[in-house]
């Protein structure tokens, strides 16, 4: 690990000023410390935000509001979250391990970095790590890579499970930066790789994720997360799907669906949602709608299986959501 200067922020303004001057925020450290040790990340200065008062969970009738420093395990165990937004605990518990979840923060989770193996190999070409150096995955080992939103410059999937469910639920972020506060949909946090895969998010220099707001839509309680992976826990998704359904008189009134493991960012399935509207809540409708999910997919040499796995995962997630009492 390269030497770095360490600062412990005692106020938001102190943290934001440090980050605006180039310091990296440090929350749980489960992504940042790991990558700094591999020298994939080499910040000169790190500002520890763990003492900021951003570890809270508030429930109202309209929404759940979660401070960026709430830990994955705390959010997953929170009774209000479990009651009003059962998708969130299920999604969180399917990710990482109990030890990591005790430490990993909600804000850091959204900004975790890709799991493409070449990204961590300092001697392999990787546009994300060294802009312009090339992409080792596109002509190399890419079974875990994306089939949606890729470019000739990068095809790494966004690894966060939580981001998938937050995108499905239309969650928003409160950001605080040197120029004040703003709110953005979680979807807008993530960039496509296009020609600049090293630019992953839309935060301005120094901007801090302060909190996440998840609206309590009528679909929120009939919502499930299905994660398909090589082993049944402690593993990233091959394909995952978050599905939330609002069913009335046996018909789908509203649907929220997003997929993980397939896109270079968490992928909202608008066309599948539209295809479900007004249809009976049954496997036949789910299959017909999920078939639309593969439109525009561009498989690489090793990940063609995801084109089949994606609709199958969505169908099963919809069935699971439909079964929730």
């Amino acid at each position, binding site marked *: 690990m390269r*030497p770095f*200067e360490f600062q*412990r922020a005692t106020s938001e303004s102190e943290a934001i000023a440090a980050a605006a001057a180039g310091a990296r925020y440090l929350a749980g450290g489960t992504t940042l410390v790991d990558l700094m040790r591999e*020298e994939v990340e080499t910040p000169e200065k790190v500002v520890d935000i763990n003492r900021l008062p951003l570890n809270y969970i508030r429930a109202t009738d309209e929404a759940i509001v979660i401070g960026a420093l709430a830990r994955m395990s705390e959010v997953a165990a929170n009774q209000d979250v479990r009651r009003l937004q059962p998708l969130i605990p299920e999604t969180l518990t399917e990710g990482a391990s*109990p*030890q*990591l979840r*005790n430490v990993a923060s909600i804000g850091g989770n959204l900004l975790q970095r890709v799991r493409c193996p070449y990204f961590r190999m300092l001697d392999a070409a990787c546009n994300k790590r060294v802009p312009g150096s090339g992409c080792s995955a596109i002509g190399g080992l890419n079974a875990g890579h994306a089939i949606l939103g890729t470019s000739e410059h990068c095809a790494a999937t966004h690894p966060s499970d939580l981001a998938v469910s937050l995108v499905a639920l239309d969650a928003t972020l409160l950001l605080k930066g040197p120029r004040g506060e703003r709110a953005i949909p979680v979807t807008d946090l993530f960039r496509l790789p296009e020609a600049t895969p090293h630019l992953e998010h839309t935060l301005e220099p120094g901007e801090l994720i302060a909190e996440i707001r998840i609206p309590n839509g009528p679909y929120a309680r009939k919502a499930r997360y299905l994660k398909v992976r090589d082993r*049944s*826990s402690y593993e990233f998704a091959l394909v995952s799907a978050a599905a939330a359904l609002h069913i009335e008189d046996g018909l789908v009134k509203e649907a929220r669906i997003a997929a993980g493991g397939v896109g270079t960012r968490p992928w909202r399935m608008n066309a599948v949602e539209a295809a479900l509207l007004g249809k009976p809540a049954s496997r036949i409708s789910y299959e017909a709608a999920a078939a639309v999910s593969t439109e525009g997919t561009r498989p690489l040499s090793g990940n063609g299986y995801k084109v089949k796995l994606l609709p199958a995962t969505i169908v099963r997630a919809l069935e699971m959501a439909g079964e929730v009492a």
Partner: protein
Amino acid sequence: MADALSEISLTRRTVLQVSGGAAALAVLPEVVGSAYAQAPTEGARDAVEVSFTVNGTATDLRVDPRLSVLDMLRERLSLTGTKKGCNQGACGACTVLIDGKRVNACLALAVMYDGATITTIEGVADGETLHPLQAAFIEHDAFQCGYCTSGQIMSGLGCIREGHASSAEEISYWMSGNICRCGAYPGIVAAVAQAAKEDRT
């Protein structure tokens, strides 16, 4: 003889550096890791004062910000019961309790946890009397080589405390952050289940 040996290890180190790690990293994470990274004492910038209570004993230290809780325990405090497997959060061998919660000590920088209370495997027994979970590990043959064991026990303590030890299935799922290369899982699950039951009664 000694010279020949050190020459061999030097050569191996050089080869690893030249070959640059990708494939070698997967095979020999620790050797390559130590050959690559500067020891945390070299080039130290702004050592930071920290204090901890480790297994009931108050400790003040000056640490390089790069020092992990794992290396602090092993190299500064000589508590080598906590093991380093992957050093990447992926195996659980380094699990300790920080302020009562199980965490991976390898991804925890000591400076982040200033003021914390840490419990390691050395602090689990009560004098010569083993903790019920330690006794259950012996009773159920819950290890072979033992490398993962202190992490398994610390994680098991966390698992029981969190209330996720009511069935074998639940224990397997909530102990999945601890890998056992020897495959002692049936014994580990049985040991955690037994200690959880004793904890409740």
